[in-house]
């Protein structure tokens, strides 16, 4: 049992502590006697409810909404997939990541031409009890809920951010939107054959469709909740996931176990368990048991990594954190493989791996200063300007400064975690060449006087300010006056994310985590029709690229498709539309009483329902013995 309480400085209040200890001991003794003598509450009333199993963990940003229709970032998704159900999720322990049915009974049956998908939904799954339902009791989840939820992504009133996943893919859906998003009208490509059978008809083959249904965007939302709460749904999720929301603010999200969550005992083999690499985590303890195993889930949003680390090492606060880079030399015994120094290894588990994503800086081509320009000559010079900025960027220094050399920087937008990554691609675009950059600027008529002002947007924070100062120094090296590289700060990630979506920032410096293990997921970031508010924050529109994207998007994984991916990657590089990129190594540490294999890559927040906590018997004897 875990005793919840704050630790006090021993010296300062030792006298008080002795007295308090005696008081507690006396109270416990009276309580024990009363319990044995039967003077407690009537049996069956839960005389002393057992301590709640609460898992606290730290994330670096807070979500700005919990509505799946706007769940555009990993922070929102972590909560959404635990409050709502998606048709598919990922096997908890399988690496590389593998899809598995979640609310769906099994994988869909697909017609021979790849255009018709049929899904079967589990029966008897209920939404949580909520006043939005008649009598306050959650009703059963049905296929119509899925159709309604996807329609919401195509209703402009919701300011949806996930439509890009299905735009132009599902028959009749774009037309439904064009006709005014009337929910009473059907969509020809979305049909509920019966309450538990769903049919999706596609305009063209979409091999990633099933993977998109493991996204928080596709989470099943009950219509009753939307009609009752409207925009309030963003702070009051009503789903059928393993947890239900207790509270939500910018400091933390607290969720509690959904008591009506379906009983599905864990089969570790089916979850991809690998004893050789995962036995240390103790996950064998959850074999055959039905999640969730914890009573409360507490997401603590701590922007500063040092604060997160302090909370983690304190012992009785957050139990899982990402290792702050400034602690790497102090905590790790070795970087490859990642191992802890003995004093940390005694207390914590560790896991380190290259992220399934990358960090990059895209040029917003909507800005005529360096993007599209009505004057073709200026547009040509703008391309040279962008290419010069690429040459001036110092990936080696960035990796050394911020990732202790643990990151992997690479050319283009196909990340190392993608099966289609090309290790043989020329590294010229990630090799600093200041002289080449200066020459390029000079040859194209750029001088310190006529260079445009570059606005570099970041969230507020020390690290972000230093990112900016580093970037500004690199740009100064290639000829930018200091006053022409300026920082614009946003209070939090949600604010800057909105600015990207509204095309309000000329430079988009961001990270992207793969939604599914397929390079298509990063290539779509530059697909023309995905322009803002879609995922193409660069607002780049290249006909050849778009054509290749459309051609590849209907192909199953194959060398032919990979070749198309590589050509698209090269077009991005040639047009210098982004300074890209680096995949960071993320190192997780968690307390040894936590049974988990944490992840924030493709798996997202799905693993949280499998977290369990070992009992901590040491706390009780300590109190009882005191005095």
């Amino acid at each position, binding site marked *: 049992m875990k005793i919840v309480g704050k630790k006090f400085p021993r010296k300062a209040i030792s006298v008080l502590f002795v007295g308090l200890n005696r008081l507690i001991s006396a109270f416990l003794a009276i309580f024990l006697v009363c319990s044995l003598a039967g003077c407690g509450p009537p049996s069956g009333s839960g005389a002393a409810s057992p301590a709640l199993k609460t898992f606290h963990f730290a994330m670096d940003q807070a979500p700005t909404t919990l509505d799946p229709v706007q769940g555009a970032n990993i922070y929102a998704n972590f909560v959404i997939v635990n409050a709502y159900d998606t048709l598919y999720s990922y096997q908890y322990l399988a690496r590389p990541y593998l899809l598995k049915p979640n609310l769906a009974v099994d994988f869909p049956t697909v017609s021979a031409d790849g255009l018709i998908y049929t899904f079967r939904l589990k029966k008897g799954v209920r939404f949580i009890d909520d006043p939005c339902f008649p009598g306050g009791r959650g009703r059963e989840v049905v296929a119509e809920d899925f159709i309604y939820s996807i329609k919401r992504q195509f209703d402009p009133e919701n300011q949806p951010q996930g439509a890009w996943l299905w735009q132009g893919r599902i028959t009749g859906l774009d037309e439904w939107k064009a006709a005014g998003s009337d929910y009473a009208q059907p969509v020809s490509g979305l049909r509920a054959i019966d309450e538990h059978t769903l049919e999706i008809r596609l305009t063209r083959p979409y091999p990633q469709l099933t993977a998109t249904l493991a996204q928080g965007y596709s989470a099943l939302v009950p219509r009753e909740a939307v009609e009752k709460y409207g925009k309030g749904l963003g702070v009051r999720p009503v789903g059928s996931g393993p947890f239900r929301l207790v509270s939500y603010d910018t400091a933390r999200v607290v969720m509690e176990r959904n008591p009506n969550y379906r009983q599905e005992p864990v089969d570790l083999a089916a979850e991809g368990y690998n004893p050789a690499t995962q036995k240390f985590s103790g996950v064998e303890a959850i074999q055959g048991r039905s999640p969730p195993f914890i009573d409360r889930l507490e997401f603590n949003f701590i922007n*500063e*990594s*040092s604060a997160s*680390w302090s909370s983690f090492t304190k012992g009785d606060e957050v139990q899982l954190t990402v290792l*702050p880079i*400034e*602690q790497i*030399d*102090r905590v790790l015994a070795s970087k490859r493989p990642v191992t802890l120094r003995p004093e940390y290894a005694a207390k914590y588990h560790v896991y380190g791996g290259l992220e399934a994503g990358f960090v990059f800086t895209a040029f917003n081509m909507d800005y005529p200063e360096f993007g599209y320009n009505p004057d073709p000559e200026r547009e040509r010079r703008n391309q040279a300007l962008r290419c010069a900025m690429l040459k001036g960027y110092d990936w080696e*220094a960035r990796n*050394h*400064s*911020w990732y202790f050399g643990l990151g992997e920087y690479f050319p283009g937008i196909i990340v190392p975690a993608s099966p289609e990554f090309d290790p043989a691609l020329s590294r010229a675009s990630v090799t600093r060449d200041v002289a080449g950059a200066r020459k390029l600027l000079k040859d194209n008529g750029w001088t310190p006087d006529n260079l445009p002002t570059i606005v570099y947007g970041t969230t*507020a*924070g*020390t*690290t972000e*300010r*230093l990112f900016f*100062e*580093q970037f*500004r*120094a*690199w740009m*100064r090296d290639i000829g930018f006056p*200091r006053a022409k590289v*300026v*920082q*614009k*700060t946003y209070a939090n990630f949600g604010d800057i994310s909105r600015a990207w979506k509204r095309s309000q920032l000329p430079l988009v410096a961001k990270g992207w985590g793969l939604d599914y293990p397929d390079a298509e997921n990063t290539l779509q970031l530059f697909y023309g029709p995905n322009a803002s508010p879609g995922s193409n924050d660069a607002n780049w529109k290249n006909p050849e690229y778009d054509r290749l994207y459309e051609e590849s998007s209907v192909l199953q994984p194959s060398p032919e498709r990979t070749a198309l991916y590589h050509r698209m990657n090269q077009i991005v590089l040639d047009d210098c539309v982004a300074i890209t990129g680096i995949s960071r190594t993320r190192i997780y540490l968690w307390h040894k009483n936590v049974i988990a294999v944490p992840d924030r890559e493709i798996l997202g927040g799905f693993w949280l329902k499998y977290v369990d906590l070992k009992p901590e018997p040491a706390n009780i004897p300590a109190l009882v013995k005191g005095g």
Partner: protein
Amino acid sequence: MNAVTLPLTAPNRASGESLWHKAARKFGRDRLGMLALGVVLAYFLVALGAWLGWWAGGWADLTGTKWEPVSSAHWFGTNIIGQDIFDRAVFSTATAFEVGLSVALAATFIGAVFGAFAGFFVGSWIDEFLLWCMGVLDAIPFYLFVAAVAYALTDNPWAMQVAMIATFWVGTGRLIRGEVIKLRGMEYVEAAHSIGVSELAIIFRHILPNTGHILLVQASITFVSAIKAEVILSFLGLGIKDGMSWGLMIDESTKEVLAGFYNNFLAASLLMFGLVMAFNAVADALQDALDPRKVG
């Protein structure tokens, strides 16, 4: 018959020496005060050099690699991205003086004018209104007020200074009000009234100059408060937007200290400590020197 009290700027006929001369003489005899003044002047010269571009111009440049130790090339080492900590610390001295001087001058000026009006028209609606303003500003927690101003003046580099000026003038205003209430009853003011001098002229030409000793001390106290507040606000992300300050350096050091690298923290803290201590000593010495009740 009331005793005649002479204005402070008039020569003290008994000793034949004005208050200012006497104060200068007293200050000159205060060895700690003189030493502190020397330190402040040294800081000022450092700031002046940074303003004129004589040194610390490379505070934003990447002149080394990550966390270099102290060396002849980098006297205080380098930070996480390879910037020279000495240059940044020196440049921050200029920032401290910019903030300190601008806030001290503006807040003292506003405090003097509003305080003088409130005191001169004591009991009138002007006095009531100004007292109400002072009360309201005193009631708002300073850092919340700064945050609100910073939000209202989004991206304005002067947001922090505006917030400081808007609150720091109150203390000066109250002191000047009290002093002016005392002065307005003096015979030389009544004499000015009787010969038809306008009220504004009485305030600005005859009364305010006689509060100079208070204003000087208040300005020095405000200067120190502004520097300290700037460091705290910059640390909290509400201060300097584009530039460098000791507060930002201390903010940077929060991560570095955890990694065992203390150069940023020590450089900024010690330099700030030196200036604040010296200026406090100067303010104390000024207060002693200008206090007519103290024998010297």
